[in-house]
């Protein structure tokens, strides 16, 4: 039965961030073709105004759980947290891009238009209860990413990365869509909340199980879980670093939000299907991600493999969602995600401050002796690496503590053991960076002038924010954050 959706003011509040972004995207597109308004400054203005308006709108979004457009759009804590996270990352990335040597090619009408449009796709994805809308949001985001990846700096390498990402991403999308189709065919509904109710009686049916499995594979592709990770290192390495930072963080946010909705809600009665499969993916990602990261010499590639390993840790926590009480695992995932996002942004900000037009593929050796020339940057990078490695007193330790806590609570001893081995391996390559920065002689002059020591710059602002929050999240803030995530956890657990 189709009934025309009732449109209330609450609906506009909920839809506002997406609508603002779409409007901004259209304006930027028109600016790009008009001679008078296609200057970098005019386009930047539109980009900033749109992003900040969207942030304000997302912050003002109602936290009561409600749905509109037949489940196409949700309001609620999780949606709000996800949208805010994505928008703030976007703002941070724009701040960093502004001072990067690729700024001129990034702040162009068509690029900004695509950028804003793909963010709107991500927002749709994190606030949707409907399989079709989910898919549309995901594709909007993915196609935008394919384009931006190859378009901002059109050289051979970035185009190769973009094509690889495009082909594998499309296969993943097809698999995911097939999974969704099977679920729809079996359950007769597109709504996740409807699937929860429809699944238990038919949970043993082969098509349903295949549908859930294919969905998992599709999400695994996007999260870059091993063995579906092949696109990630190439894409990370070849993209302009700002885009890499954007991709590494926002994609995780949006996919994990969906994963939370699916695995703790809709698929809870199918845990015997996805749970063993996810365990395998988690183990492979933690081990292979960390081992591959060990042998990388390119900094961005190393960070790519490390992000694969971190996806693995998050998958460990997702496995813990098969427990009856999902509050701890959900919050563990969100906390881990928060720290991962902040630390990744910080690490990529360091990379961006060191890149020059002549050398935008930094190797680990290029960081040698950084502590002597740029002590602030070296200190920041050390904090990030320690946090990635899970050492106290940084956020990474608390995140790992909660993830292990959730997993052990669910008797996943083996997984935690694998996590421990992975952590130890990871410390080796994270610390190798620290060794290079502090214990080796400088080999090359460092980085762009506008982010040098002590000078105010937006990149340094992002960096400072990331360092401070990494340390605060590891010391005084965890209780506060975990408290605030309770809302999201209860919402996800809603059956």
């Amino acid at each position, binding site marked *: 039965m189709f009934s025309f959706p009732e449109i209330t003011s609450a609906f506009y509040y909920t839809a506002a961030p997406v609508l603002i972004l779409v409007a901004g995207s259209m304006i930027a597109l028109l600016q790009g073709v008009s001679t008078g308004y296609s200057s970098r400054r005019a386009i930047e203005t539109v980009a900033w105004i749109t992003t900040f308006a969207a942030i304000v709108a997302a912050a003002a979004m109602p936290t009561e759980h409600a749905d509109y457009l037949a489940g196409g759009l949700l309001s609620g804590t999780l949606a709000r947290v996800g949208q805010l996270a994505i928008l703030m990352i976007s703002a941070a990335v724009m701040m960093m891009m502004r001072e990067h040597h690729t700024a001129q090619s990034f702040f162009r009408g068509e690029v900004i238009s695509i950028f804003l449009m793909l963010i709107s796709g991500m927002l749709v994805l994190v606030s949707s209860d409907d399989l079709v809308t989910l898919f549309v949001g995901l594709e909007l985001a993915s196609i935008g990413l394919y384009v931006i990846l190859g378009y901002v700096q059109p050289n051979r390498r970035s185009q190769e990365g973009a094509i690889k990402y495009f082909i594998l991403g499309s296969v993943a999308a097809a698999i995911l869509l097939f999974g969704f189709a099977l679920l729809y065919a079996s359950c007769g509904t597109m709504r996740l909340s409807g699937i929860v109710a429809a699944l238990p009686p038919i949970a043993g049916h082969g098509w349903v199980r295949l549908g859930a499995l294919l969905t998992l594979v599709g999400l695994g592709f996007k999260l870059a879980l091993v063995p579906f990770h092949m696109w990630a290192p190439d894409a990370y390495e070849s993209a302009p670093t700002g885009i890499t930072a954007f991709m590494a963080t926002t994609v995780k946010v949006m996919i994990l939000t969906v994963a939370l909705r699916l695995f703790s809600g809709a698929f809870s009665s199918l845990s015997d299907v996805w749970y063993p499969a996810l365990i395998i993916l988690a183990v492979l990602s933690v081990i292979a991600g960390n081992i591959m990261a060990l042998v990388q010499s390119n900094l961005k590639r190393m960070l790519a493999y490390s992000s694969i390993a971190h996806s693995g840790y998050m998958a460990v926590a997702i496995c813990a969602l098969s427990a009856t009480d999902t509050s701890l695992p959900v919050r563990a995932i969100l906390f881990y995600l928060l720290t991962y996002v902040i630390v990744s942004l910080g690490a990529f900000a360091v990379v961006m401050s060191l890149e020059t037009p002549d050398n935008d593929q930094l190797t680990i050796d290029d960081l040698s002796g950084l502590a002597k020339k740029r002590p602030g940057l070296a200190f920041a990078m050390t904090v990030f690496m*320690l946090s990635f490695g899970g*050492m*106290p*007193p940084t956020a990474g*330790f608390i995140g790992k*503590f909660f993830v*292990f*806590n959730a997993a*052990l*609570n669910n008797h996943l*001893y083996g997984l*935690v*053991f694998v996590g*421990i081995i992975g*952590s*130890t391996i990871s*410390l*080796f390559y994270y*610390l*190798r960076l*620290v*060794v290079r920065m*502090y*214990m080796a002689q400088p080999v090359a002059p460092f980085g762009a002038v506008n982010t040098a020591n002590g000078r105010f710059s937006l990149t340094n602002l992002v960096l400072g924010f990331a360092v401070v929050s990494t340390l605060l999240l590891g010391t005084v803030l*965890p*209780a506060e954050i*975990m*408290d605030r995530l309770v809302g999201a956890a209860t919402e996800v657990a809603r059956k």
Partner: protein
Amino acid sequence: MEFFNSHVLSIMTFLPLMVAAVIFIVPDDKFARVAALGGSILTFFVSLHVWHYFNSGSAKIQFVESYVWIPEFGIRAIFGVDGISLLLVMLTTALTPLVILSLWNSHVANLRYFFGALLALQTGMLGALVALDLVFFYVFWEVMLIPMYFIIGIWGGARRIYATTKFILYTVVGSLLMLAAAIVLYISYHRQTGIYSTSILDLYNASLDPTTQLWLFGCFALAFAIKVPMWPFHTWLPDAHVEAPTAGSVILAGVLLKMGTYGFLRFAIPMFPLAVKSFAPILVFLGVVGIIYGALTAWVQQDAKKLVAYSSVSHLGFVVVGSVALLADGSLSVEALTGALYQMINHGVSTGALFFLVGVIYERRHTRMLADFGGLASVMPWFAVILIIATLGSVGLPGTGGFVGEFLILLGTYQSSPVAAVMSATGVLLGAIYMLTLCRKLLFGPVTHEENKKLKDLSPLEFSYLVPLALLVIIMGVFPEFFLAKSKASIEHLAKNYRSYSLAIDSH
């Protein structure tokens, strides 16, 4: 004053870190050394306050402070000292100013960062000793690693990066397993009581089935065994010591290694008492092997620093053997336990002095090979005196602290297992051999190298940090009661009641 009295442990713990923060901000080496020395001496005075007002007759936890960190998960910061941790706290606060003094005129690069790292390290060590909450203990335990990692990696010798990476990876493998075991313990306690708590005062009461206790004890024991280090997990130690700068070696041998043996006494044994019976023979075996292996390896070393490093493996073997000397009635031997604790302090003092002395000659000759020296007694008489005192303390001659410790350990171990005692006793003999070999090769005989004839004797600065240690070696041998009185009640409580251990809070 009221505030000081109720927060004395956290003030003591975090004071060095705050000074370190100031040192990092103010870019001046001269200021840094004054601030570092002042800060560490102030910390020492705060710890003297604790020592003075510590109630010796009580086995309770004293000077307790409790702060809530993550209320929902029962994670609190609980600080407190008892007789066992008090002595180690004093060792830490006493050793740090001496280490800072030893760097007073140093010309290494980025000296102020060195001071900062040492002070941050001190906060880590003190925190790990006073924390009575598993999460906080773990945090401090890991926080200790980071400054040490930099100290070895930045200011160390030629193979410093290999050594420091090995050091940190070894330790992290153990400590992550310990973290997992701690979480399992915490979850089991929650399942039993419905309360989330990471406070060990609560967790002592968790009743776990024997198999779980075995596993958890194993995980904790591995972390501690790597830190001690017990044979066969000791291989990181010689590398770390050889590559570390003198100051790093002193702290590493003096305090850091004791964290492992302290961990057994505070965590592994009282929390998993049912596993002690199964693990005690293994630990005693590994301890005895460590004693003999360490001694034999030390004997053949050509490098003075390596010799002292291997002697640590041997001496800490004694501590481990003494920590788990089970008597027939199932309790631990009080004598052996007392000896183990005393030996920890002794080893810190005498080995600290030995590393300083090796540093003294290394600074003059830039070599530590025994073959490059000889006859120093005639050139550097004061150096010889202090080296001999430290050596005697290390081999356990009556009248030095080493004698008291080793004697008590052997006495207690004999009641538990005569074979182990006899085997350990050979370690005393071997210890005398290799340490006296060290003395002979350095001090006596003719001066064979022309350069050695012009060596200067100890400078006033070197006296300032060596004399206190030399005096301590003797004072600890002559007046052991002065030190042991503080820990008697706690040790007896642990030895007799570790099977149903609990620590009451002394609120005075």
